[in-house]
């Protein structure tokens, strides 16, 4: 099992309810995209799954364990198996790319290895191979503040792939990439999930990307699950209703491709 939520809710300290009672389950190796207007609770949901936030209510299991009942050591070991791709990569600007990539596997390395790697990178080949999947191999020894926003976002993805987690969480992982690169980056994520049997749970702003790469789509609105369907059963009407608050047009990556994809998957088939 990838994860299981049962009646999980999240209320922030200021009393704001970010998530209603959500029940959701994903099997090991399953790929799920979550879409929805901004403020729907996508980031909160991903932070809950990444054990960065503790649910206010309900039952939560990640990789067959309830993280908040584990001992500190066991929780740490569980966390090394969950990788979160953040929308803006949490990488210190002056860090070198190779160090930022290595940081992905720090949880598995003993402390001495992590510290040693600051003196001389211990796994240059591994970091380079991961970067190569995103056409960034030549940037290995560059400093992160010399990268463009799109390059940095791909470094952030590469770092989580380098972590080799069993559950990959992604919060708008390709928001800073142009359509072609976004497509390629998502392709890499999906391939990684398929190859290693890791579950992939990604929030995406662009509906067309979600429909293209993910077999299962969860629509989230106002902290509640609006629908949870196989991609080919998501209709344009459902999407319009989901994004009703944001106007008539659906948020997509590339206009032409999007309508096509949406048609291909819903009304046209």
């Amino acid at each position: 099992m990838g994860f299981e939520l049962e009646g999980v809710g999240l209320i922030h300290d200021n009393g704001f309810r970010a998530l209603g009672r959500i029940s959701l389950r994903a099997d090991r190796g399953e790929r799920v995209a979550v879409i929805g207007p901004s403020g729907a609770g996508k980031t909160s949901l991903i932070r809950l799954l990444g054990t960065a936030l503790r649910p206010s209510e309900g039952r939560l299991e990640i990789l067959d364990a309830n993280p908040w009942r584990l001992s500190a050591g066991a929780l740490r070991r569980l966390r090394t198996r969950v990788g979160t791709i953040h929308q803006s990569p949490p990488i210190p600007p002056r860090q070198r790319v190779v160090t930022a990539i290595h940081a992905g596997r720090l949880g598995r390395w003993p402390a001495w290895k992590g510290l040693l790697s600051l003196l001389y990178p211990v796994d240059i080949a591994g970091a380079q191979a991961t970067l190569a999947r995103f056409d960034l191999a030549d940037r290995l020894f560059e400093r992160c503040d010399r990268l463009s926003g799109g390059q940095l976002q791909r470094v952030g993805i590469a770092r989580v792939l380098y972590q080799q987690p069993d559950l990959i969480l992604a919060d708008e992982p390709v928001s800073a990439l142009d359509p072609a690169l976004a497509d390629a980056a998502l392709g890499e994520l999906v391939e990684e999930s398929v190859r290693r049997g890791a579950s992939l749970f990604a929030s995406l702003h662009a509906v067309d990307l979600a429909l293209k790469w993910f077999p299962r789509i969860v629509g989230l609105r106002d902290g509640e699950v609006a629908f949870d369907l196989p991609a080919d059963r998501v209709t344009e009407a459902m999407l319009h209703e989901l994004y009703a608050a944001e106007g008539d047009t659906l948020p997509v990556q590339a206009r032409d491709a999007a309508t096509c994809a949406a048609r291909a998957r819903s009304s046209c088939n």
Partner: protein
Amino acid sequence: MSNRDPAARARLGWTLVALALLWPLLVLAEFRPWALFEPANLRVMGGFLAGFLPPASSPEFLGLLLRATLETIAIATAGIALALWLAAPLAILCARALAVSRIGPGPGRLGGEVVRAGGRAVLAFLRAIPEIVWALMFVRVLGLGPAAGVLALAITYGGMLGKVYTEILESTDTRPARAILEAGGGRFAALAYGLLPNAAQELTSYTVYRWECAVRASVIMGFVGAGGLGQLMDQSMRMLNGGEASTILLVFLALVLFADALSATLRRALA
């Protein structure tokens, strides 16, 4: 694509250079932490620290302490007052915003530049030597006592105040002063009507802040015999009188806090 870290060689090189430099520095500085634990040193320090409690509180010592504290404050105040006599004229001389010859440029421009450069050099010279060195030299000429401290403060702080005053006068809006100069007004008219209304608050605020520093400095100068708390502390330390030293340290910390608070209040009142 090479599989080696291109920065590693430089990093290793610089680390080796740093270590190679650090080693002689450690030797030069006689870095011997174990000296702290040598029995002789432990005995001296232990006895001294043991004397810290209870702090000395005999009436005659407290009387002495009160006089020394007042002396310290008086040295700082008098030193700043004398420093002002030095700093204000030099700052007025050096401020470019008050130079009528720069307008145009008018006659006497070269002479003006030379005078200003000279003034700046004087200010730099006054600042260059730390006040405690001045104090040490004045003690040699004038003998032990507060006079050396006052003069030392006057000289270094005169230099510092003069430099900062000049900077403040030049960083405020200089157009009013220029207008006055262009209308035929004199240097002092331009200062009083053109620059001071804008700069007065910053000038006073900085002066008061400097007074706060002068209080600390006057304590420190006492160690070379320039009177006040420092001289008293030096004597107590020399006699290894821990009780007196701890009382003086406490008074010193209280004095610094008091000077901080007073300077903050004054700056608010003059704002």
